[in-house]
């Protein structure tokens, strides 16, 4: 279509300025978040029973041999820090993907039972089937995909209705959590700390073998998900509008679900279902970024920051050491209650 009357240049300039302003805000937020994540990551490597200064930590990370630091930082703290980073990014990314796709902040994978599925499968694999390493990840991923499919089918009645999906998901999640608890009671030789990993998530005792699958999954599936960000943004306008804009709705949804479930299941197999990170990251990112474009990257960074900071708080800020999931759980639960109350007040049907 050729516009008969070209728009006034002043309006075009105003539109361009408006757009630039929005993207500047978004880029600024992303940059600040990235810096904060990097800082929290470095602090995680520095502090502990022994304090190592910044320069020693950096040298270890760059592969130099530093007496003392090489073992403590390189072997103990680095896997833990990387796992925190990877898991946080994965939980944040997957959470906001689901929330965007289903147009509901309650629809994050940890609220609708997908994370619980991965956790229950992982603990079942370890305790009952005596699996390890990749086998645990595989079982967790299969279970998470299975749970996603079951929830989808149970709530599908000529189109997926958001509220029904969420309620069914919460029910399925509760069921799977009780599976986890039951399996843990059978595992007498485990200590309380280890049990907590599978109930709320923990980074304790992270090893490279545990971290590697989660890292690879994030590096492979994360970019695929980011490639869908424009399509996901269009889905926010409703399926029909998105389709009219040239989005292949079902294909986008399938790719998004598989990738989001994939990253979150691999991360859960490594550190358990760190409570509420998926659920919190998106809304926090939305608050900071404002309605200025895709939330995928900001939410991933917020997720990483949440996990890194919560782990630092859990380890060092309180009288006892708490696993990271206890801290994020304390943050997330009130927000969940707030959200449910707000939905009720707004006259929502939930």
């Amino acid at each position, binding site marked *: *279509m*050729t*516009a*008969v*009357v*070209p*728009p*006034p240049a002043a*309006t*075009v300039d*105003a*539109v*361009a300025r*408006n*757009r630039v302003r*929005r993207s500047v805000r978004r880029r600024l937020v992303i940059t600040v978040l990235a810096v904060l994540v990097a800082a929290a990551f470095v602090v995680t490597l520095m502090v502990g029973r022994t304090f190592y200064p910044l320069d020693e930590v950096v040298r270890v990370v760059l592969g130099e041999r530093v007496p003392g630091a090489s073992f403590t930082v390189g072997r103990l703290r680095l896997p833990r820090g990387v796992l925190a980073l990877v898991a946080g990014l994965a939980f944040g990314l997957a959470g906001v993907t689901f929330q965007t796709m289903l*147009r509901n902040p309650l629809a994050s994978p940890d609220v609708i039972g997908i994370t619980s599925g991965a956790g229950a499968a992982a603990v079942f694999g370890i305790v009952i089937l005596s699996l390890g390493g990749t086998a645990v990840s595989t079982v967790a991923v299969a279970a998470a995909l299975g749970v996603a499919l079951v929830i989808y089918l149970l709530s599908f009645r*000529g189109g997926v209705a958001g509220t029904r999906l969420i309620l069914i998901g919460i029910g399925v999640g509760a069921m799977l959590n009780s599976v986890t608890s039951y399996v843990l009671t059978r595992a007498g030789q485990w200590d309380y700390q280890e049990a907590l990993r599978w109930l709320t998530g923990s980074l304790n005792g992270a090893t490279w073998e545990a971290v590697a699958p989660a890292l690879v999954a994030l590096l492979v599936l994360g970019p695929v998900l980011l*490639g869908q960000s*424009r399509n996901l*943004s*269009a889905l*926010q*306008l*409703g*399926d*029909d*509008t998105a*389709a*009219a*804009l*040239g*989005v*292949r709705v079902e294909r986008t949804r399938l790719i998004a679900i598989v990738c989001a479930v994939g990253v979150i299941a691999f991360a859960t197999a490594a550190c358990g279902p760190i409570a509420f990170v998926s659920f919190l990251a998106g809304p926090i990112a939305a608050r900071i970024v*404002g*309605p*200025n*474009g895709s939330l995928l990257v900001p939410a991933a960074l917020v997720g990483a920051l949440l996990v890194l900071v919560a782990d630092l708080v859990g380890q060092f800020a309180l009288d006892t050491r708490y696993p990271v999931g206890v801290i994020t759980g304390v943050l997330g639960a009130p927000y969940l209650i707030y959200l449910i109350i707000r939905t009720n007040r707004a006259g929502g049907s939930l």
Partner: protein
Amino acid sequence: MTATHSLAAEELTLAYGERLVIEGLDLVVPAGSITAIVGANACGKSTLLRSMSRLLSPRAGRVLLDGKAVHRMPAKELARTLGLLPQSPIAPEGITVADLVGRGRHPYQGVFSRWSREDDAAVAAALEATQTTTLADRAVDELSGGQRQRVWIAMALAQQTDLLLLDEPTTFLDVAHQVEVLDLLTDLNRTRGTTIVMVLHDLNLAARYADHLVALAAGQIHAAGTPAQVLTEDCVRAVFGLDSRVIEDPTSGAPLMLPLGRHHVDTPAEVSPRG
């Protein structure tokens, strides 16, 4: 330009699961003109529109755009020629007018492509045409119903399609805003030659603003043609089950339908509507 695009349905059958909604329907949309589709609630107007923009695959038959089946066309290519404003689009919380209208540029952008001056110009033109330029920074959910509808139309305009389908663009608007939206669509049709297909509930506004009127009933086209040919007392009775008087609209010459209920008229209807 527009006149070269033809849109037609051939023996179209549409269904949701077991439920047949449209059966063997043939429809030709006259290029470069305004077509209005009218019909009773739940008779399949939205379903037909959704299928014409390939949101719903036909059970049988085809929708042809320039002789090609729309369901075989690449999604983005189709979206550059044919736009659809659905009956109830969703505005994400807090989204600004400029952002929403910019979403109309989706079919022109790839994963890695950046915004171009052309995209900005298309958004600007859409804002100007709908007189929403001054609203650009406002949040869509704070606007009045009429403003919001203009913004959605602006989004569809930013898509720069030669064909534009609109599902009940005037529902929920007061009469002044209804007229405003229809005038805007007429401007668009007259200045750019955009082919417009819209579902309307108000028969009299449909008769006045449409060049071509299509009355849908029982999954079939009951009548199609100029408003004077289609909007008759017999047609209103057949399509809506309503007795009426049709006179000439003294302000436009189009047919004007006056419903006859059981009360408040000199010659009341013998049966109640849908009786």
